């Protein structure tokens, strides 16, 4: 019998699974525990030491575990996983069009017999929820791991959801590393568990784990053979009859995974003082060890299904039990349902990222004090092509339904020209919703090229089909800029920068049945302004593709504009552009930061008093 291919075995499921479990533990996990218990010891003996981030460590570990196919859509903080995997020639890595597509491609490869990996951020997983929920039913053939990076503290996200719930919801095991070195070790474990229990595995990281770097002792790639694919209609065709049977098996699988949870060294007890014990997972473990080095720990790395017996035994061994976890009270509530008395963080600590200095507060049972952030806010880069479009939209007093990307920064004052931001692709659909209630209003949907391909195009087809009129602007900067400049179908290049067929945004809009499709360089601001006015006045559905490469791709700089202090009326209109190169002096005049200024001359175009003059004549300036 090929392990993992048939789950559960058709004869004597429990016995066979116990055999597998035992084999699994002897083969792999006990080696892991030794390694985890003293990472530094192994590292001293290793000749291959690298400074890896959590993302890079996951990629490296997956590669060593014989990974064949990896798919993702970029999203902070998970982007670097695929970027790292793309450096290995023997991994078939791709930027997928969106997360749903990525998940399905990777799962297909797993069913066909190659170990595969899906990576995304937490909100990306929402897009892939449809295949995920049923992938739990079909199970896998070769190991399949979904790496999902949560973003507590919203470093670059639209919400703070806790992906561990998804594991419970989809009845999948959840593995949670607390450092890059653990991520490297645990990802191998994840592939093994996936194959032995015939299940996709959720590998949950957070921003702080994904973007922390640590020494990791690396090794060679394991020779993992492809698993043969055998047609198995009851397993892979989820029609009601088959799915019902699979549901029975999934409930059994959960029980078996719970047994694994009791025994796996991923859930480890560190004996310390019997006076104080912590149950914790992920990054708070590190912060607690820093603050309470002598306490006892139950450190969960295999968070779900829970290890009830281990938790109960640990609870009995300590006098004061405290549960500390980031975001939602998942472990906390489970511990309480077991009838165990434990303290946990105040509800205010469910919001935002936990920090090392929070640990004594949580221990004391204090609430979190909200402090206004003094950090500098991000702004659109000097010379950013998006700024031209938003300048025009601001002049036209448009209501802008926005989307996810750099251009979301247009919502921050003083630009304040983006009025909704919900999720990927929602600009076009919210635009339609607005127009249905406010047919006469100047509503403009604005989204980027990558976002349009991700999930904007479906909304556009819906708008055409349902006879909607209005104006959509695609800010085509020829890259996925916010996540650091990744390729996508409309750039005509793959993840490895190889040439591929290029998707034409204007052709696809025309094919959808949009009435007017215009392509314009937003730097031609007068023409853009006239075009926007015309399209807003028409009773038609229009798309404007505002095409100019991201300033991080096209780094060409022109000399900064000339500034005439005498002509300046200190009206402040130029400052409304929120350009970092324009500095306001105490008396309201302009000071141009030469090293920042890209010479886009939008400020000169904006100045009503001609106090700012372009040093070089542009096409329409």
């Amino acid at each position, binding site marked *: 019998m090929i392990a993992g291919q048939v789950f559960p075995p058709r004869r004597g499921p429990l016995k066979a699974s116990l055999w597998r479990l035992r084999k699994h533990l002897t083969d792999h996990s006990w080696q892991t525990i030794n390694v985890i218990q003293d*990472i*530094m010891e192994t*590292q001293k003996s290793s000749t291959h*030491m690298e*400074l890896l981030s959590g993302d890079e460590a996951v990629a490296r570990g997956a590669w060593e575990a014989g990974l064949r196919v990896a798919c993702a859509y970029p999203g*902070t*903080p998970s982007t670097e996983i695929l970027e790292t995997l793309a450096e290995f020639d023997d991994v078939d890595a791709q930027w997928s069009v969106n997360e749903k597509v990525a998940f399905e491609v990777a799962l297909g490869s797993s069913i066909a017999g190659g170990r595969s990996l899906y990576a995304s951020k937490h909100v990306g997983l929402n897009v892939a929820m449809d295949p995920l929920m049923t992938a739990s039913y079909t199970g896998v053939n070769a190991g399949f791991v979904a790496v999902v990076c949560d973003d507590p*503290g919203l*470093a*670059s996200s639209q919400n703070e959801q806790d992906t561990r719930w998804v594991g419970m919801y989809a009845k999948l095991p959840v593995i949670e590393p607390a*450092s890059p070195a653990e991520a490297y070790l645990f990802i191998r474990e994840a592939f093994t568990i996936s194959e032995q229990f015939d299940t996709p595995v959720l590998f949950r990281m957070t*921003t*702080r784990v994904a*973007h*922390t*770097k*640590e*020494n990791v002792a690396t090794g060679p790639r394991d020779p993992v053979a492809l698993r043969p694919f055998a047609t198995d209609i009851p397993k892979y065709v989820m029609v009601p009859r088959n799915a019902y049977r699979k549901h029975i098996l999934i409930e059994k699988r959960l029980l078996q995974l719970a047994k694994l949870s009791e025994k796996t060294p991923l859930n480890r007890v560190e004996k310390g003082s019997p*006076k*104080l014990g912590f149950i914790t997972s992920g*990054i708070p*473990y*590190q*912060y607690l*060890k*820093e*603050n*309470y*080095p*002598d306490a006892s720990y139950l450190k969960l790395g295999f968070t779900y299904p829970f290890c009830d017996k281990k938790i109960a035994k640990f609870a009995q061994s300590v006098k004061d039990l405290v549960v500390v976890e980031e975001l939602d009270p998942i472990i906390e509530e489970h511990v309480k349902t077991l009838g165990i008395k434990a303290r946990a963080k105040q509800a205010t600590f469910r919001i935002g990222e936990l*920090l*090392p*200095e929070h640990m*004594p507060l949580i*221990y*004391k049972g204090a609430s979190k004090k909200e402090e206004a952030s*003094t*950090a*500098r*806010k*991000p*702004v*659109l*880069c000097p010379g950013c092509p998006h700024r031209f479009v938003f300048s025009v939209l601001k002049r036209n007093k448009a209501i802008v339904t926005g989307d996810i990307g*750099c251009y979301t*920064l247009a919502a921050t004052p003083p630009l304040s020209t983006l009025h909704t931001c919900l999720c990927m692709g929602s600009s076009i659909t919210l635009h339609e919703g607005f127009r249905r209630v406010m047919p006469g209003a100047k509503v403009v949907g604005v989204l980027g090229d990558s976002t349009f391909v991700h999930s904007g195009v479906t909304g556009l087809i819906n708008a055409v089909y349902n006879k909607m009129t209005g104006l959509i602007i695609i800010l085509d900067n020829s890259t996925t800029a*916010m*996540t*650091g400049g990744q390729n996508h179908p409309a750039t005509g290049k793959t993840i490895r920068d190889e040439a591929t067929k290029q998707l034409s945004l204007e052709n696809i809009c025309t094919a959808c049945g949009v009435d007017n499709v215009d392509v314009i360089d937003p730097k031609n601001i007068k023409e853009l302004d006239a075009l926007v006015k015309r399209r807003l006045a028409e009773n038609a559905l229009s798309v404007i593709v505002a095409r100019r490469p991201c300033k*991080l791709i096209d780094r060409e700089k022109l000399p900064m504009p000339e500034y005439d202090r005498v002509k300046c009326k200190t009206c402040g209109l130029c400052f409304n552009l929120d350009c*970092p190169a324009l500095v306001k002096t105490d008396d309201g005049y302009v000071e141009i930061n030469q090293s920042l200024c890209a010479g886009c001359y939008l400020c000169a175009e904006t100045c009503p008093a001609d106090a700012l003059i372009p040093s070089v004549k542009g096409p329409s300036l």
Partner: protein
Amino acid sequence: MNKKKRKQKPVDAIVNVLFCGTGGQGVLTAAEICALAAMNSGYHVKKSEVHGMAQRGGSVESHIRFGARIFSPLIQPLQADYIVCFHEGEGKRLNGYLKKGGRSFLGFMQDARFQPADKRFFNTYYLGILSAFLPMPEEAWQAALTKQLKRALAENKQAFGDGRKAGLMALGKQEK
């Protein structure tokens, strides 16, 4: 209980360096070189930063901690041995991280700005100053520079060497 625990913290052998500045200044590259140098010297290193928005001119912080065994990748307030700032405002904003007797590089930054003839090598010159204060041997730094810098390596190493001399001089003065 709390007080007792705090006394037992194994912090004596750990060095905490906080790098800060704004997006595009090369803060993250400088921090990477420092972390690599620590790894090359046999320390357990943890380096933490959040990027994603960093390229858009927002605040950039990189926490580096190294020693025999590191748990938290983040430095706690009042625990940074050194604050290496690339931006005056950011350096002042994060001053609350500095431990008693810790050192802010604000003064060095202001001096160093005029030092290397070519401004492009400011960061490596600045790192050279820092290297004088940290326990890593010079070879570990050189290896880290070679690994991390792709262009103008010779010039960068020259700037690093000059910075290191300046740092050693400043350190000598302090010790006297």
